[in-house]
Structure formats: structure tokens, C-alpha cells
């Protein structure tokens, strides 16, 4: 199987986010960056499919050269190739813009594939747009938020999470699948993998090579504001024995908060 996996570099989920109001962007100094955790499930699934069925796993990221670190990590996990699509623009929160770039790269540079794997959403922009948009651009079926994936010949079956149930989706290959927690347990890099990844070259593709014009890569989403969430005040600590506190809590929820 020929599998393409799309990943993104995001701030560590344990980080505090600070914002710059003048530029309407987040402050990146002192932030630690990681591969978006959902993307790790996608990489792991690709490696498992390759181990079961043979083939090749290529990992692709769009971004600045800072994304090389997360691409290297995927090579160290066991991916065969990694490719950077050079995008100098900071986070635009515009899913369609990225989908156009990725779909064009697939058409121009990776025309032979069976499966495109993504994380269900980047942990940052939280858009959950790119996988479905790439599927539409390439005329492929899609299965998102997947917790189980089976490939049999040119047919796929996936379980995807919906409210209070699972949907079993069947599709033909090639297809787009987006991964989430529950699909697998991503492996750690091995020392051998890390050494191998160090030596491996990561080619970079430019918009020019992909025939992407300035117009096509201009964001359609205009950021008007970036705000911190409304600060919450620490409230009341209810004193007393567990029995007294529990009774008082119900009283407060009923009479004061009016939520029970």
C-alpha cells in the first residue's frame, strides 16, 4: 500500500497560550512544539498497515523549516520518506487554504496512492476541516474521527465516533481517513530509527514547483480578534462535614446557580 500521512506542528498541549493583540497571533517564544497528537495516531496506523501489507509510508507537512523536527520524528518512528511543503505564512486558521496546498501536492508529486491519513484535527486551530476538504478536492471518499480501520483489497471499513454510538463506514480506495484517540497506541521512536532519521534527507517543495499562485494561497479567513477566555473567579469552598457540604452544594446548585 502506498500511504500518505499529513501532519502538523502544534504547541504542546501542556502549554499556556499567550496572545499578541497587535498581530492577532499567539506568542510563540518559549512555547514547546510537538506533532499534533491526533496526527501521531495517523502515522502509527500507516506503519501498522505497511507492516501488514507492505508498501510505503510518506509523511508530509506544510509549514516553515521548523516543521522538520516533527517530520524527523515520523522518520524515527519508521516512516519511509518525509517531505516538507514550504509555507512561510503563519497560522491562518484557514482550512481550505491548506487543503488546496496539500491536494495540489498530491496531484503533482504523489499521484499514486491508496490511502491519505490525517489526524482528525490539529490541536490548535481545532478546525477539523482539512481531511474532508482534501477528500473533496481529490474526489475521494472520507471517513473521519476513526477509532478502527480495516483494509481489505481495495475496500475499507472504518468505525467513526458519533454522539453516543459508532458509525460503521464502508468505502473504496483510494480514500481519506482521519484518526483520533482510540485507534491505536503510537509507538516510541527507536534509537536505530533516530539515527536513521538523522541521516535521511527531507526534500522541500515550493509553491512555485506545485504551480500554486499567490491568489490560490491567499487566506479567505480574515482574523478580526484574538482574545483570552473570560477569566474565571475561584468560587466558594463549602465548609462542613461531607454530609453538610453535599447538602449545601445541592442547595446552591438549585437556588443560586439554578442548574439543578
Amino acid at each position: 500500500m502506498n500511504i500518505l500521512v499529513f501532519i502538523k506542528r502544534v504547541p504542546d498541549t501542556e502549554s499556556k497560550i499567550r496572545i499578541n493583540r497587535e498581530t492577532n497571533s499567539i506568542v510563540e517564544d518559549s512555547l514547546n512544539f510537538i506533532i499534533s497528537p491526533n496526527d501521531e495516531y495517523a502515522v502509527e496506523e500507516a506503519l501498522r498497515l505497511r507492516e501488514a501489507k507492505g508498501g510505503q509510508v510518506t509523511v508530509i507537512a506544510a509549514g516553515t523549516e521548523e516543521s522538520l523536527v516533527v517530520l524527523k520524528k515520523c522518520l524515527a518512528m519508521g516512516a519511509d520518506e518525509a517531505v516538507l511543503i514550504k509555507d512561510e505564512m503563519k497560522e491562518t486558521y484557514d482550512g481550505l487554504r491548506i487543503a488546496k496546498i496539500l491536494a495540489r501536492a498530491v496531484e503533482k508529486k504523489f499521484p499514486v496512492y491508496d490511502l491519505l491519513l490525517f489526524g482528525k484535527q490539529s490541536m490548535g486551530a481545532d478546525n477539523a476541516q482539512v481531511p474532508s476538504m482534501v477528500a473533496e478536492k481529490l474526489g475521494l471518499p472520507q471517513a473521519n474521527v476513526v477509532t478502527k480501520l480495516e483494509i481489505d483489497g481495495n475496500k475499507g471499513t472504518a468505525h467513526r465516533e458519533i454522539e453516543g454510538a459508532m458509525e460503521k463506514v464502508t468505502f473504496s480506495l483510494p480514500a481519506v481517513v482521519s484518526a483520533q484517540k482510540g485507534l491505536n497506541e503510537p509507538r516510541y521512536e527507536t534509537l536505530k530509527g533516530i539515527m536513521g532519521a538523522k541521516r535521511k534527507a527531507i526534500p522541500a517543495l515550493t509553491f512555485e514547483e506545485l504551480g500554486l499562485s499567490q491568489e490560490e494561497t491567499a487566506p479567505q479567513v480574515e482574523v478580526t480578534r484574538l482574545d483570552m477566555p473570560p477569566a474565571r473567579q475561584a468560587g466558594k469552598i463549602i465548609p462542613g462535614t461531607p454530609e453538610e457540604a453535599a447538602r449545601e452544594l445541592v442547595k446552591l446548585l438549585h437556588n443560586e446557580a439554578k442548574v439543578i
Partner: protein
Amino acid sequence: MILVFIETREGKIKKSSLEALSEAKRRGDELGSEVAAALLGPAMDCLNPDVFSYGAAKVFLLENARLGAYSSQGYAAAIHELAQELQPKVIFFAATAMGKDLAPRLAAKLGVGLASDCTKVAVQEGRLEFTRPIYAGKAFLSVRLKSSPQLATLRPNVFPLSEPRNKAGEVIRKEAVIAEGQINGQVAEILREKGEELDVTEAEVIISGGRGMKGPENFALLKELSALIPRSTVGASRSAVDSGWIGHQNQVGQTGKTVSPNLYMAFGISGAIQHLAGMSSSKFIVAVNKDPDAPIFKVADYGIVGDLFQVIPPLKEALAKALSE
């Protein structure tokens, strides 16, 4: 016109679609735009009264045997065709599993931007400004979309339902054109887990447990509390999920789900930054924890410092009493 995609499950309209419709009506009144609803699939007529009472002036019933089972390709094709004809200014979806699957596909088909999982919509200079949490709620982003129609998915449980009105409207029936071979992936089956739990993203009350629950068996205590409270469900912190005590679908936080219930009750959850991000837009927060310095108390409206195993039994009793009155 503002067009609202109405999602149905088992012959009923999802509450979050009616919330989206209510919001469409409020913003539509401001913009001077009428609101229309789109219902897809066979035999949807019986649902017309519901969409009219929540603000739609028109309902479009898009019919085709191929719309019987959900497929992003078939549904996107049907709405795309309708949008080409109606040229709406705005299209709303509920940010449900289906809405999040369908809206981006339609946006790419139309070649327009999409604002995902919005928690606020405002009218500015005749266009909409969408506000949405990013980094799971560590910051809020406001955007305008330069392209038209403006597409957005609206987070469940955030936009108030309007008071239903006894109104009639226009019903327009259309046969959707979906070519042979246009759908090559679709839902084959819906697999129910035991019971019919409400998803954490839809629940109005979440009873959540963390490491302090000490083991999977103790989540039964939270389920007992949840059983007492209407439209409630059980949630969990990352460490409880990673310990295998409860399924990942219940996980609240940046690596799980971001939620905005009316009431979030955290038992034995210390409040890691990624957990707080996912639940701090809850309207009321209750924390029960042994550790008086736990970060969760900094965001809680009401806190009890104590052993959750001693607090839950009298709490259950008091809740049962209060809810029966």
C-alpha cells in the same frame, strides 16, 4: 437567505440543529434575511412543523434514494445543488459528528471558507463575525469569511433555543441529482454501545472523574449520579482514560473533547492545563478534591475539599430529594 442544514437521527431532528435554526432566525432578523431549512433523505415531511416553529420560513425537502444512508459525498452534492440555486448568504450546520464531517466537504465544493465550532455569531457591516475557541479553549478567535456563502458550524449547547412558535411555512420538494458512482463511501450501520449514553459534547450536565476515582469500578458512582440528573452524562480526565478506567469517548480536555455544559462536576480531578482548557467554558463548575491546592479549585464556582467517596453518597441522597420535589 440563511440556509440551515437540519440533521436527523432515527426520524427526529437533533436539538443542536434547532439551536442552529434559532440562531439563524436571530441573525437573519438583524440582516433582513429569511431563514430556510434543508432536510435530506426520504419521508421527512413529518418534521416540517418543527422547523417552522423554530424560525424557518421555508423548508426544502431534498429527496433521493441515495440519501437514505448518510454519506458526505451524497449529502454535499445535494446541498451544493440547492446552494447554487438559492445563492444563500450564509449556511449553518450544528457542529455535531455529522456537521463536522459534511460542512468542510461542502465548503471545498463551493470553494469557500468555513468557521468551525463557533460559540458566537455577530452581525458586522452586513456580514457575520464568528467567534470560536482555539487551542481547545485556551484562546478565542474571531474571524470574518471573505468568500460567500459564509459557512459555519455551531457548537451544540451554546446557542439558546428560541421559544417555539405555532407557524406554518412553505414546503418545497426537490429531487436531488446524485449521479451513479458519485458516492463511494457511506454509513453501512450504526453500532450502539450498551445503553444510550449522551455524548459529553451534547450533555447539559457532566459528572466527571479523574485519577482520584482510584479505579474503573468507582465510575459506577458517577453513573448513579448521572442517572438522577436529566440530560447528563459521565466524563473523565485524560489520566482516567489513559489508565483504561473509562472509554476515550468520555474524555474532556484538549486531547479529548471541549465541552460547554450548564454544569460540570469534577470528582478527583486536579485540573491539568489541558483539562481546564476543555471545560472552563462550562457555565457552572463544581470540584470535589482532597487537595485544597488543586488547580481545579481556581476555576470552580463551588468546591468541596474532601474525600469524594464520603461526599458522593450524601450528595446522591440530597440530589434525589431535590429533583423529586
